Structure formats: structure tokens, C-alpha cells
């Protein structure tokens, strides 16, 4: 488990990082916390001859909340997300989910940007960002563009980000209503067997807005459009919830692995989604 050699770059601006990416093309990769990338490099499963460390780029850091919009720099660590009292007050869902990621040491280094940009279907933040309907800001040689989290993921490790682009920040509107992130895993440090993020807003006993996304139940996170449609505008009674749960399970396409066969994962997906909806509803 020894990585191959590479040249190490540590730019201190986004522009600097982009020009390095443009210069080295396919041979270059950016590194954030590195706890996904380094184990892969140690197995020499990937060819990287230029490693671009984003750690010194101040523009990629920080959490700001203003006018109902949360903006989080890509290099913000999970530990910082957990520690931010302002975030815990405005969007407690972030803290609830972050605490379920990896373990304390990994959370000190693991970043939000790395977690969402990697395209690993097992990562929790992509599903969470789809739940929040977040937007990713991408910066490249041709300027800045924004891509919705719900549009970003194409397949496992394939995303809308171009090779020479950097995911610089994540923004979303402060959600209203109840929230929950539920995850079943074998142990701390494991990926989800099934996980779901849920937001629900209820007004006069009727569901006003809702959002549900799933983690590790397909080769990308799954935003459950059909389930959301079922919930919105309706009274959230048992048959409605059941219908929404079924829609989520139908939207999932898990693959068998050491965590279990497909039929098990689909069943558990249903249980987890139900728990998440129930918890969110209780907090709505």
C-alpha cells in the first residue's frame, strides 16, 4: 500500500489551481482532505503525476449565512460543519448528517467539497445536498458556473465537473420545517447500507414542501422526485407515507456487496426512508 510518485503543488488561489489543472490535464488531480484519494493512490488504482493541494486557498474556506442563503466553501471540513453553532441553529440537518460520516479523525480532514465532488455513491454529502437542493459553484478556465446537486451526478465517479474545473462552494436556501438524516451502517467508519435525507414542511396539516434523497442505493445519489410529488399538497397520513416510501424504494437501484444483497438493501431503504420521514415530520 505505497503510492506512486507525484509532483506536489500547493497554489494559494483558485486561479492558480485552475491554471495547474489546465496545464497538466488528465495527469493532475486536486486533493482536499485526501482520505478518499490517498487510500486509492496507495493501491495505485489511479495514475496521478501532479497533485494539487487546495489547502492554502482561503477563498475555498468558510461558512456564511445571509439572506436565507447558506454558502459553504468547498474546503470546509466535516469537523467545522459540526462545530459551527450558527449552522447547527439554522440547518441542524447538516450536523446530524455530518456526525454520521466516517469517524472523528477522518472528519477533521474530510471536506464538504471533497465529499460531494468525488462522485462516490457511498458518500453521504451528495445525497444530503440533493435533499437541500444545493447548488455547486464550479470555477474553470472559462469562468464560473453553477450546477444543481440534483443534476451534478452522472454515474459512479462521473460528474458534471470538467477535468479542469474546481468545485469552489456549495450554496442552498435555509430550509424550513422538519428534517432528518437516517443511516444504517455496520459500524462507525462504514459506508451506508442505506441512508436517506428528508425535509418536510407542513402547513395546516398539509405537506407544503418536501425533499428526499438517498445515499448508496444507486450509482449516484437518488433524488426521489416521485415521492416528493406524492407528499406535497397532501395530508401526511399512513397511506400517503407508505406510497412515498414505495416510490423511494422504486427509485433505488442498489447493487449487492458485502453489506448485503439487493432485496435486503431495497427493504432496508424502505425502513430507513420511513424512519427519516417520521423523524422529519415529528420535527416539522
Amino acid at each position, binding site marked *: 500500500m505505497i503510492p506512486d510518485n507525484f509532483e506536489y503543488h500547493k497554489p494559494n488561489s483558485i486561479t492558480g489551481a485552475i491554471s495547474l489543472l489546465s496545464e497538466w490535464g488528465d495527469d493532475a488531480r486536486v486533493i482536499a482532505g485526501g482520505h478518499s484519494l490517498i487510500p486509492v493512490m496507495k493501491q495505485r488504482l489511479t495514475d496521478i503525476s501532479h497533485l494539487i493541494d487546495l489547502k492554502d486557498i482561503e477563498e475555498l474556506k468558510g461558512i456564511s449565512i445571509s439572506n436565507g442563503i447558506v454558502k459553504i466553501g468547498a474546503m470546509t471540513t466535516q469537523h467545522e460543519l459540526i462545530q459551527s453553532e450558527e449552522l447547527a441553529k439554522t440547518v441542524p440537518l447538516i450536523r446530524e448528517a455530518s456526525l454520521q460520516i466516517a469517524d472523528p479523525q477522518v472528519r477533521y480532514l474530510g471536506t464538504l467539497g471533497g465529499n460531494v465532488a468525488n462522485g462516490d455513491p457511498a458518500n453521504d454529502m451528495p445525497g444530503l445536498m440533493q435533499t437541500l437542493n444545493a447548488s455547486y459553484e464550479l470555477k474553470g478556465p472559462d469562468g464560473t458556473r453553477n450546477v444543481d446537486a440534483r443534476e451534478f451526478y452522472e454515474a459512479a465517479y462521473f460528474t458534471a465537473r470538467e477535468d479542469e474545473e474546481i468545485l469552489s462552494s456549495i450554496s442552498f436556501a435555509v430550509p424550513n420545517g422538519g428534517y432528518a438524516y437516517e443511516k444504517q451502517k455496520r*459500524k462507525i*467508519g462504514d459506508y451506508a447500507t442505506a441512508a436517506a435525507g428528508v425535509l418536510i414542511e407542513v402547513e395546516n396539516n398539509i405537506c407544503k414542501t418536501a425533499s428526499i434523497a438517498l445515499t448508496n442505493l444507486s450509482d449516484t445519489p437518488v433524488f426521489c422526485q416521485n415521492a416528493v410529488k406524492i407528499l406535497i399538497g397532501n395530508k401526511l397520513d399512513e397511506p400517503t407515507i407508505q406510497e412515498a416510501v414505495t416510490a423511494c424504494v422504486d427509485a433505488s437501484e442498489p447493487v449487492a456487496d*458485502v453489506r*448485503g444483497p439487493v432485496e*435486503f438493501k431495497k427493504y432496508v431503504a424502505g425502513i430507513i426512508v420511513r424512519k427519516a420521514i417520521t423523524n422529519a415530520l415529528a420535527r416539522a
Partner: protein
Amino acid sequence: MNETIPPKEERMTALNGLGSSRKRVEDARFTQGKGNYVDDIKLSGMLFGDFVRSPYAHARVKSINTEAALAVPGVHAVITAADLEPLKLHWMPTLAGDVQMVLADGKVLFQGQEVAFVVADNRYAADDGIKAVEVEYEELPVIVDPFKAELEGAPVLREDIADKKEGAHGPRRHPNHIFTWESGDRDATESVIAEADVVAEEMIYYHRTHPCPLETCGSVASMDKVNGKLTVWGTFQAPHAVRTVASLISGIAEHNIRIISPDIGGGFGNKVGVYPGYICSIVASIVTGAPVKWIEDRMDNLMATAFARDYWMQGKISATKDGKITGLWCHTTADHGAFDACADPTKFPAGFMNICTGSYDIPTAFLTVDGIYTNKAPGGVAYRCSFRVTEAAYFIERMIEVLAIKLGMDSAELRVKNFIRKEQFPYQSALGWEYDSGDYHTAWEKALTAVNYTKLRQEQAERIEAFHRGETRKLIGIGLSHFTEIVGAGPVKNCDILGLGMFDSCEIRIHPTGSAIARLGTISQGQGHATTFAQILASEIGIPAEDITLEEGDTDTAPYGLGTYGSRSTPVAGAATAMAGRKIRAKAQMIAAYLLEVHDNDLEWDVDRFVVKGAPERFKTMKEIAFASYSQAIPGVEPGLEAVSYYDPPNMTFPFGAYICVMEVDVDTGTTEIRQVFALDDCGTRINPMIIEGQVHGGLTEALAIAMGQELAYDELGNVITGTLMDFFIPTAWETPNYQTDYTETPSPHHPIGAKGVGESPNVGGVPAFSNAVHDAFKSFGLTQSHMPHDHWRVWKIADRLGLHD
């Protein structure tokens, strides 16, 4: 002439001897990061060697091209089987009487097998070299299922012995068959079962797993060509045996080999075997003239060294209508992987699997074990276990549950009905063992009372009612286990490894000022020998434990012994320590008699001194005696105060215990939550209660891991699919419960201090307790048997099959 003697109690306390929860002397070093593990060793000019490993489970090696690798900066040499062949080191003997390739000789037989050894300046250059070695493979059909190994058309795995009809353990009926081992009376057992009122039959599988100590295996070999001496530091649980084996296979005289086990970061059986890495680091040091280090990474460790278990145990158990067991039959299919490298005493190719009658008075029994080759890694080590006793205990504790279901009887009651009674000890088992001592009924009663068993059963019944009413989706499982271990291998008359008798040893030297050093043939891997063996000695010779240094693991200084595994250190080396201590005391008595001018027989031992009988004011302390032994000419007594004991135990010891686990099982998610674990151990005389408790906590946690998820899993192509600690399950502090421990104390009648050994008991007894809890939760819904590990999806599957998701 002497000052007032402090009271006896006070002097005993000052010794910190037997029964004291003495704090560990090892800890000051370890807590400061001052341990000295093999990878910490750094010698001048040291090189690093590592392996090219096979990506395939079965393939012919068409060619190996090392040219590009040799051109990699920092690479010094690439060693292949062709280089080892002239030295006759391309194959090596295994501990089980088989041979194993050191480096791939024409073919590879499991994924991760060692193909070439790259020696370089450091581990980075070595890895660069590995990636540059070009190996051409031709894939061959793979056997991963031992039941398919002897089917028509099955590929022959071991072409080297394809025609050999006789193996190390008797006739072979097929090229992929290793041995068949039998124990007990086949005819009598089969007829008892045929005529029985009730017979329960079940296949019990104990899956393949791995000891996975946190430190992997490794070695540093240094051949000093000037004085012809080879020194090897390594992760060896049996350094002396390694020296003898190294001498036999290398031709280097044994006195020119020095084996040193430094601190070992956990062993659990992983470090008993002899691995190609050790051999290659030695050869590489001879070839390059420089010290060579080899350290496994975690994937290497899980893929290539020392799996454990993988026993398919077909069982039949018979009883009278009222639940008296009459017979036990077991046929085991043992998947040994590509080479038979099981670490068992020579005469026991299936270890002590014939302890499978457990804690029960079963008059008739028969066991047969078939060893089979497959395309998996070799090993079959005793993972926190005394040679397959974990498999045996799991088998019988499952069969008891299965029989209880068949009888419609509570399994706690069935156990009570069939326990060997206190007065039956020493007890002769149907499969040939003489159990030394036990009091099972007392231990069991204590355990049932501690958990309030009757109330638990009530709660469980109420929960089931609630479940049927749709009020809950969680069931309660009550897992019972009463195990009997067999440890302390063992009597030289029937226990040896590669012909070396399984005695052990202790050498003691008392210094003039009354402190001491003791050296043993064992080696601690976390058990705290430096602490506990000093306690044994303190009680024997009256010198405070604090004044006794313990040394192990250096073959140039320690007396010969067979090492530490199979809970043998306390039963064997612990006994040697006590016996050597008694020799010291005998000589001390002569010296004291001379000094006090009385006859030897006029003296009596009093904690830390010899006292003249009837004249308590006249005495000599051990400290005084020690000084006298070096300073005075005593007629008829040699100067100095030293002793050595090589102890050949007359019998094994038989620790036992009663474990109960209460578990909540969620039928929808398959998740489980441990609510209570009660563990009562009887390990005979207790040397250090604090350390015993620590051993029990650790063993229970390993048992929890094994029962609930830890698995060395292969896909159908023979690829290891649990090769990192992401997938190979080891629970964290979060998933691990608190344990309640208790004890009874039934000394071993044949051990000098009555101790029996404890390190492995919690693993042996824990696995059935956890597994039985899962089974018990679903019992009333019709579950009889479901294989481990009981991870989420397998538990869910049980519920699914029973229709609980409909």
C-alpha cells in the same frame, strides 16, 4: 537478634504475588510509545523486501520477467522460486506435515500468494519494483467450495503431490483430499443414534475468519557473514521453534541462529506460523549481505497469512425422551486452503476438535474430520483458541440448542440435565480426554441467577406477544453458552509440533542483593507475562514481584520452549516457573539451615523466609539467604542461587465458563443490539484478577466480531472480498457493549499452582453465546439453524425466510 517480624498478611501483600491485581510493569513503556515492535527496528544499511503477489486464485505462472524491476532506482534484487531452488528453499515444510511454496513454483494456488520478492533501499522503492515485475499467468479453474473439491472433473490443485496416496496423517482418497481423522467409536455411536428416542441433526458452519492483530507480521533478518551468525527479529509466537525450523531448512547450525521476538502487537494465532516473508528476508540478507526487513501491509495480512476456522460440521445428537443425551456424531469438512499449514500438534490434524462433547456427560461419540484443499490461503490457525476448540465448542453449544428445540425443552434445563457432575472429575470423555476438574452446575446456577433467567424468559414471551399484536418489530434473544476448554498443550507423550515436545521452561537467577531475573520459553503478545509470571514467582520464592525481571523471546538467552498460543503459557510455562521457584526454595532451605545451624527439616517456609519451627524469632529471609549464597562457603552447597525447570505437563487443563448474552434483534433492518453480556469464567487459581478481566473483555469483543460480522469472504473466483479494515469487520468502542464478569475457582489438581489459563475462554464461550442469542430470538418462529456471521443482511434474511416481512 532480629527485629520484629511484620505480620504475615502484610508481608504477603508486599510480595504482590498470586491473586493480586498488580498493575502491569509493561505499561510505562507502552503508554509512552516506547515499545519496540519489529517495524521499529532500524539497522545500519537495512534494506526492505516485499512481495509481488498473485492476483489470481489459481493460475499457471508462464513467465516472470524481472528486468524492468531491477532497473527501478533503489531496487537491489528480485528473488523468484528459480533463485531459491538451488538452495532448496523454494518450498518449505508446514507445521502440519505438508509443504508450502515459499515463492510460486510453476503455479499459484490462492489470491495473494507470494510470487517474487523485491529487495530495495526502502519500502517505497520496493513497491515501485513490485509494480515493474512482469508476470504472465494462465488462469485455471478455481475451487472455493470444499464440497466441490472431489467432484468429477475438479481441477487438481496440488500437482506436486497429486499421486501421493499417503499424506502426513494417513491415506488420501483424492488429489484434493488431505486427510481423514477419526476419534471415538463409530459403530457404537451409529447404533445408539439409530435406536434413540430423539435425534436432532444439523449442519453447523463456522465460517472462515482471520485473527487480524493490529500489528501485522514481519521480520528483520541480519546475516553477519564475518561470524556466520544469523539474527532474525520477528513476530514469532514461538521463537525457539522458529529457530529449530530455520536451522533444519536452511542448513545453518542452530547455535548460529538467534531468533528474537521483540514486543508483539497482538498475535491471536496469526503469528504462530512460518511464513514465506520470514524465509525471504533471511535469504535476501544472505544474498545482499545487508539486513533485510519485511513487513506485511493489512491487505497482505488478511489475504495471505493465517486464516482461522472454516469448518463445516454435520452433527447428530441423540437423547432419551426426557432429555438425557445418549450419543453425539459429527462429520466435519475442513477447508484448509491451498497448503495444509494448520498449526496443530502433530498427532492432531484437526486439533482438539474431539473436545466436541463439551461440558456434557455423553457416553458415546464419534467424530470424523476431512481436510480438503481449496484455492484459498493456507493457515487454519487457532485464533484466540486452543487448536479448534472454538469450533468444537460452537458445534456442541449449537447442537444442544437444536436438540432442545427437538425435545421441546428449555435449553438451560437440558444443559443442567447433562452436565458432567462435580463428583465425576477427573472425567473420561467418550472421545478420549481426561477432564481435570470442574463444577459446572454451580457456575451455571450462578449465571442464570445473575441475569434473572426466569424473568428474561417472561419478558421474551411478552415481547413475542407484542410482536404478534404489531406493537413492536424487535425481538429478544437470550444466548446461552456453557463451554469447556482444553488448553495447555501439552503432555510431550502426545503433543508435539514438528517433533518438538510441547513442554515449556523457566530459568531463574537470584542476584546477591535478593532481586531476580526469570527467563521463559514463551512470549507475551499483550498478555502481561512480565507482570503475572513475576507474581507466580513472588509467591513461590518470597521475593516481591517488583524485584523480579521477566525476559522472554530471545533464543540466545531464554530457555527452550514452544511459545505462546493455545492458552498454554500459564498451564505450561507458568507451571515451569512455579517448579523452578520450588527448586530455588529447596536450595534456600539448605542455606538457611546452615546459617541458622539447624537441620533442614527443622525449618518451615513463612511467606518470604525460613523460620525455625517453634522459634519464630529465628529466621532467614530470602534476601539474606540470597546474599549468603554468593558470599559464604557453605559445605556441600554450590555457590549461587539459580534453577531451571523444563515442565512436561501430565495433562491438559480444562477451564470452563457460563456465558449469557441478551440481545435485541430488529427483524426489519437486521440490526442487533447487545443489551447484556454476563461472563463467568473458571480458570482455576487466579493469578491477577485485573488481567483476567481484561482478557475476558478482549476475548468477548473478538467473539462479538466473529459472531456478528467478521468474515474472510471469497467470491466464486477466489478473490478475497473483505481484504481491508473497511470490509473486514472489527467493532469500535461504539458497537462494543460493557461486559459483566464473574468467576468461580476450581483449581486444576495437576498444575503446581492450580491455574488453568484464560486468554481464549471468552472467544470460545462468547461466539456461541452471541450466535445462540440470534437463533433464540427467532426460535419461536421456527428457526433451527442459520450460519454465522449474523451481520445485518443475514439476520434480515432469517426474518424474511420465516415470513416476518409479509
